[in-house]
């Protein structure tokens, strides 16, 4: 009997609920593994998948979205050891699970807090309700690899947006493993899409893409690149989230800003009888 040979894992992209290799066939060596190097076309395909998922995800009831996100947190908890094996501190994994649960709880509470009835001078019911922006491109922070990633993905998808995430180029394994968590947790394919590789290659494509509605530049550390991305994003008036670098203390309770930055408000006037 010969000795067993271990099966090595291939780290691939996560697009539309599937794990394809990069269309370009390229990969790069990082964290002692070969990881797909996403191309412009992969970014385009991810946007198409994210757009296709908007209708179902935004149309699901807030309660249902919350339940699915709780389920994702359960799966994340179950894979704790796997993340630890990737070199992520146990505390950070716990914090990531707690962060995910914290955001999941907001799914069916955001509308009460952020929307509501407006007093108006006339015989009308006037109601404002938050609605998702649509497809959101996210440049994830370089580190902490898992907590930072969860802290940018969860607030975007809780209100009903779908995301295309450019993962941390130096620590992408946590992102691909998180994709495996999401793929096994009832989250519809295409709601979260994860691209690994160079930010300089994927982010400009996403920023210029006319079918992307918002972009989160949290993970862009190069000020010149961030400005360039903002200029590109202006073409179709994308919502741009560019927090000051000093704000990134991921351990504190985040507040609602990240969710509300990716919302539109719909106001309805309804005539009131006597």
């Amino acid at each position, binding site marked *: 009997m010969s000795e067993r040979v271990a099966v090595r894992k291939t780290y691939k992209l996560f697009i539309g609920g599937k794990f394809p290799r990069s269309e370009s066939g390229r990969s790069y060596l990082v964290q002692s593994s070969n990881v797909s190097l996403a191309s412009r076309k992969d970014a*385009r395909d991810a*946007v198409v998948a994210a*757009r296709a998922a908007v209708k179902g995800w935004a149309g699901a009831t807030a309660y249902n979205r919350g339940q699915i996100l709780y389920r994702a947190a359960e799966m994340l908890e179950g894979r704790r050891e796997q993340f630890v094996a990737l070199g992520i501190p146990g505390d950070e994994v716990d914090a990531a699970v707690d962060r995910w649960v914290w955001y999941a709880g907001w799914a069916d509470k955001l509308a009460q807090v952020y929307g509501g009835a407006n007093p108006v001078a006339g015989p009308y019911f006037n109601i404002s309700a938050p609605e998702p922006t649509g497809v959101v491109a996210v440049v994830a922070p370089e580190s902490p690899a898992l907590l930072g990633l969860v802290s940018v993905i969860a607030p975007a998808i809780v209100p009903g947006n779908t995301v295309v995430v450019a993962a941390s180029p130096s620590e992408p394994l946590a992102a691909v493993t998180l994709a495996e968590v999401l793929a096994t947790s009832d989250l519809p394919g295409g709601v979260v899409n994860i691209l690994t590789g160079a930010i300089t290659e994927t982010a400009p*494509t996403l920023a*210029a*893409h*006319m*079918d*992307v509605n918002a972009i989160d530049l949290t993970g862009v550390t190069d000020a010149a690149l961030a400005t360039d991305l903002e200029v*590109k994003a202006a*073409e179709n008036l994308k919502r741009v989230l560019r927090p000051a670098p000093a704000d990134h203390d991921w351990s504190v309770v985040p507040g609602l800003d990240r969710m509300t930055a990716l919302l539109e408000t719909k106001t309805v006037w309804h005539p009131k009888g006597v």
Partner: protein
Amino acid sequence: MTATTTSARSELSELGRSETALRTFLHGLPGVDQVGAEQRAAQLGTRSIKTTAKAQAIDLAIRMVDLTTLEGADTPGKVRALAAKALRPDPADPSCPHVGAVCVYPAMVPYVAEVLRGSAVHLASVATAFPSGQAPLEIKLADTRAAVAAGADEIDMVINRGAFLAGRYKEVYDEIVATKEASGDAHLKVILETGELATYDNVRRASWLAMLAGGDFIKTSTGKVPIAATMPVSLVMLEAVRDFREATGRQVGVKPAGGIKTTKDAIKYLVMVNETVGPDWLDPDWFRFGASSLLNDLLMQRTKLTTGTYSGPDYFTLD
């Protein structure tokens, strides 16, 4: 033209006279190697077409689109809007070519004719009890005449699949001949509805039958059955038109219809045309795409090539 071709041509024109002669000829056609055809079609789909070649392919594909709406819910307003789009598919870019034709039901032809008058865009109408073809011959012919009288210059007829599958080839042949006569100067496209023909051998026989009977174009599908145009079926049909021109000297066009939705698909077809029948067919007069959603994807890809940024469906009309 050599003497053999001339005699072959007269022989072929005699075939329609008897059921037996037609059957002997059609069943004498070489069988299609199913695995080979599918493999060849798949292989042709792997060619890489980039940059300037892609730009040319996209413009050619736009010119080849038969912009189609065949719904019970079609209204005069909807078909007028579609005709306007056919003339100027991308209003933001004057260099974008117009499409090949607009394809509608006979009742909608007059409204489209108003918009297209004086333009180079053709007006196609389905006829002969589309999509089933299950109506008496007089009704089918009246349908055809009405469409031509209303202004259609291309007629998309359906063959009688019931008769074809039952082996009554002469009946199918005679119907095509009669429809060709009823359509007068209008171009006749013969829809084989390959999704209902079951085998590639039948596709090859139906292609030859349609060409022998005088069809100007052979078209894969109505778009109303689950299996529409596929690459292997189109390959078999392209081979048939190639062989037919070799035997008779007459060139017949091909129109795959239904299920072609992306630029990538369209370019695969163009590659197949070029490598199967050659550049003679790379022209809107000889090759068309029956499609509706394909056009928006072509326009989005065209915008990507001209502006460098990916566009989205928000910027093009919903048809």
